[in-house]
């Protein structure tokens, strides 16, 4: 099989094995918690890459998928007694459907107008959810310990959720990779370069954009359902936090937009940096300042991110890292 000879396949599988194995074999809970957040970051950044890197549409409100997925997931598991996995899948389907609907509206907008609309949608959803009494309004929903019983108690549930998230991380990377190598992906890249020219060449921009917007919401929504299930509580301000949206963009820029590995590497590095800064007594106060300076430096001097920079220095590596 030619697929087996693709370096990317082994890179993704290797990353998954490391993430699952490192804390898995030693039962290292602290390491697991750290890698859990990193995996969430990789999921958010690589799905965001489908919009920003592949299609050229800057979605500043991407966290709305994560938050809504969390709400649907928590609602199904706690209020309706659904098992976790079907709840997460249905949450993702619901979010993707809603995204398709949103997308048909806002994807008529281009450039900064689109970006503004994505911020507006996130804020509108946040405000709306704060008013839904069935979802606990502005105080949100709390999960009782009993929801963890079917998974063998809270302690074991946390491990199961962790492995599921690693699975979604792998799925996100495979999704990015397959789209990048597909005809669909080629159409997206054409739209990124010049939407009108792409249309004249036969690409159906409205269809392609709506589909990718919806697809880019699916796995983050599942991740959101798992994240908030594990978290034990979900609140509007936490679920629809624009800061997390923008952090995902910073990760993407750090690694390099448009490439599969760029999103993942950027998310990994940013998350390591964040946890280092947060735990260091000297810098914890200035975490945001340092992250801001880092972002500014990247934007001004290395707009292609780490992977773009490596690709320029060593063109032969570009093919491996796609």
């Amino acid at each position: 099989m030619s697929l087996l000879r693709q370096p990317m396949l082994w890179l993704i599988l290797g990353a998954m094995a490391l993430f699952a194995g490192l804390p898995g074999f030693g039962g290292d809970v602290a390491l697991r918690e750290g890698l859990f957040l990193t995996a969430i970051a990789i999921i958010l950044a690589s799905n965001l890459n489908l919009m920003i890197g592949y299609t050229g549409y800057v979605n500043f409100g991407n966290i709305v998928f994560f938050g809504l997925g969390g709400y649907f997931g928590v609602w199904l598991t706690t209020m309706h007694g659904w098992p976790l996995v079907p709840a997460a899948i249905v949450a993702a389907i619901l979010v993707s459907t809603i995204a398709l609907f949103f997308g048909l509206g806002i994807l008529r907008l281009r450039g900064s107008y689109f970006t503004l609309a994505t911020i507006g949608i996130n804020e509108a959803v946040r405000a709306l959810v704060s008013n839904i009494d069935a979802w606990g309004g502005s105080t949100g929903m709390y999960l009782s310990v009993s929801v963890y019983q079917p998974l063998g108690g809270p302690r074991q549930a946390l491990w199961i959720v962790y492995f599921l998230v690693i699975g979604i991380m792998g799925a996100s990377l495979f999704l990015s990779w397959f789209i990048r190598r597909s005809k669909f992906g080629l159409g997206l890249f054409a739209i990124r370069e010049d939407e009108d020219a792409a249309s004249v060449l036969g690409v159906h921009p409205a269809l392609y954009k709506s589909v990718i917007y919806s697809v880019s919401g699916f796995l983050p929504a599942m991740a959101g359902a798992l994240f908030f299930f594990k978290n034990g509580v979900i609140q509007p301000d936490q679920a629809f936090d624009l800061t997390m949206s923008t952090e995902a963009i910073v990760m993407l820029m750090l690694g390099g937009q448009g490439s599969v590995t760029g999103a993942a590497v950027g998310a990994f590095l940013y998350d390591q940096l964040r946890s280092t800064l947060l735990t260091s007594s000297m810098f914890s106060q200035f975490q945001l300042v340092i992250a801001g300076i880092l972002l500014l430096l990247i934007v001004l001097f290395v707009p292609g991110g780490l992977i773009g920079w490596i690709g320029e220095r060593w063109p032969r590596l570009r093919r491996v890292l796609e």
Partner: protein
Amino acid sequence: MFGVIASMVDGLLLGAVYGLAAIGLTLIWGVMNIINLTHGALIALGMFGVYFLTARVGGSPYVALLPVAVLGFVAGLAIYGLSVHRVIARPPLMSLLSTFAVNMVIIGAGTAFWSTSIYNLPFSVPGITWQGFTFTGAHMLAAAVAVVVAGALYLFMRHTRLGKAIRAVANNRQAAELMGIPSGRILAVAFALGVALAAVAGGLIATLFPFTVLSGSGYQLKSFVVTVLGGLGNPAGALVGGLLLGLIEGGVTPFIAVSWTPVIEFVLFVLILIAFPKGLFARGAAR
């Protein structure tokens, strides 16, 4: 019934301040096609500027607006030089991110110095009570200042050489350069002006409500709403958009829970953006 009208009048007073806050954002958008994401942070800095000048130096907060405006202008020049000038011709993502990066730095530093606790300007202006409804003096004064500043900006843009140069650059940068207008310097001035307006608006808001270093982001979102109502890049429209937003807020408050107001605002925002990307008051060629 009277309660509703009074609430709408109060909404209009607040709306004038929203409008002023949004003018800074829309001016920068109109001149250089950039969404300035430091806007909220500068509003917050304006709040703290007025607070510290009043609390430490003493005097009226309205007098403090003047040095705040000057400091805002200087900060604007610095931000432009650091983060905007190099990305002005690049795709929108770059300017969004570079200004957002500066926003992170300001908010991060502000949080480190002042924490996120609530500050309150220790002063009060006597209000007017009419038919049992009190219009606070601070609201009226703030609206008056906002309208005066907006009017001054209008006159500046219409009747001074610099204002005309800014409009020329906004209209067509290349053509303006061919006419001998140094577009780089004009862009810097326009950006700094937008930032100064944000700081002044922040200072005015500080006279109305308690605030934290994070308050700016809420007003930044409101500014987006206002700008879209009035048309991106249209300063006069921003003031009208601000009044409209204030009117909507004041008009719905008596009827629905406060928590529904942002739902209405943001749904309206997205719908107007989709239906009228050039704003409600666009006259053909608005960019």
